């Protein structure tokens, strides 16, 4: 049952991620990306990390993708191929993407294969164990990143004001 679910989610995630890249209408891209986010959330649930799954959906599907959708609608981007870029930019984008992929493949090749524990036995993804790690071991980085968020918020407000 779990294995079938895993394969189903994998295929759906890969399909929607692929469609994000090749679909031409901006709104379809946004919706496929949302679908991909939901698939990743499903993977977290299979790994018994319910908290991560729900936070993933709240943050990505509920906030960031809604903002994307909002922008697409406000600018009313409905036409295909509205973003024709010059050939030089296209080649540069391809090269940059290729370099990123080589880096990722290289990193993945170097890492040791970790034997996964049975996710139903670990409690690592549950909220209480996550909170213990965050507020004991990594308290300082956690607080520093919250300051970073605050400064980003203040910056966004300042940019939005433009008086």
């Amino acid at each position, binding site marked *: 049952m779990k294995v079938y679910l895993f394969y189903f989610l994998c295929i759906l995630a890969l399909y929607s991620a692929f469609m994000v890249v090749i679909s031409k209408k901006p709104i379809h891209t946004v919706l496929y990306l949302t679908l991909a986010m939901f698939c990743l959330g499903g993977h977290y649930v299979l790994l018994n990390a319910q908290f991560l799954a729900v936070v993933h959906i709240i943050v990505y*599907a*509920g906030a960031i993708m809604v903002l994307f*959708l909002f922008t697409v609608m406000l600018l009313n981007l409905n036409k295909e191929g509205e973003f024709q870029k010059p050939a030089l930019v296209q080649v540069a984008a391809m090269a940059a993407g290729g370099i990123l992929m080589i880096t990722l493949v290289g990193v993945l090749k170097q890492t040791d294969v970790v034997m996964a524990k049975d996710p139903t036995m670990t409690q690592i993804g549950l909220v209480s164990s996550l909170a213990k790690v965050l507020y004991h071991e990594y308290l300082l980085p956690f607080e520093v990143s919250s300051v970073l968020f605050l400064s980003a918020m203040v910056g966004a407000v300042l940019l939005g004001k433009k008086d």
Partner: protein
Amino acid sequence: MEYQFILYKATLSIAILTVSLLIAMYSTLAERKLAAFFQDRLGPDRAGPFGLLQPLADGIKLFYKEEFMPASANKFLYILGPSLTMLVALLTSAVIPWGNSLIINGHEFSLQVADINIGILYVFAVVSVGVYGIMIGGWASNNKYALLGAIRAASQMISYELAMGLSIIAVVMMSGTLSIQKIVDQQAGFNWNVWYQPLGFVIFLVCALAETNRAPFDLPECETELVGGYHTEYSSMKLGFYLFAEYINMFISAAIISCLYFGGYHFPFESMLPVSHNILTIIGVLILFLKITFFGFVFMWIRWTLPRFRYDQLMKLGWKKLIPLAIFNMVITGFVIRLLH
């Protein structure tokens, strides 16, 4: 056991779906009857005794209406919009504890479809996804009024989600758990959260009104400015889905308010009743539905009493009043918890 478990959960989900749909159906009648009462009219009374068959007649009418698809609308998204709205509206009921457990033949059956330990966050996730149906539908209709309604809906729901989340955090801080079942059980007797979190409750109620797009926050479908808002171009059962989802949302919000702030299926002096566990559970379910009915009435009461906000007033209320108030409530709760422990 596994097989039996799945069968039981499937039965429970179907039962809850049926009950939600039935209640949503009769809320439409209740809404019209109450509106009539507030406006000194009679309300629908032709179909069946006291108009009891009116929702059925409405449903049949919607099914038989012409299916209209606007020209140059995006077909797939146009159909996806109402379907998503309906799906998301029904999803939340999975984590609401409808009652304590039933014991049959020594097996204990919980009256909750999924007791996940992050129930509140699940509700929050579903609420935050709820905006998709409206946005997609409004955008796919290819109509300026619908688009305006969709954008209003999106900005309103995003704004009020924040205050709603902040007011829930105070409850979570008090009870120390994210599981709705545990939060309800901590309020056994008359130990309701509303006594400790009156401000949080008011913020949550206002945000729930805004999230369900009901008056005085019904700007997304404000008919004096936007014809019909995001569902202007919809007809037949697709329109029915949008309207129906609103009533399901109302029912679910009333259930969540009852669970988070008013003790859910617990009621005062329940430990003194000389009845068996199962009967107590059934009484608890009835009590929960009584509370839900009361909050459903409050929702309708507010709709037919208050005029609609202006758009800038809506945004001001959300960002400049409710969010600071919710943060203040959170800080105070933190201080009090620190002092007491």
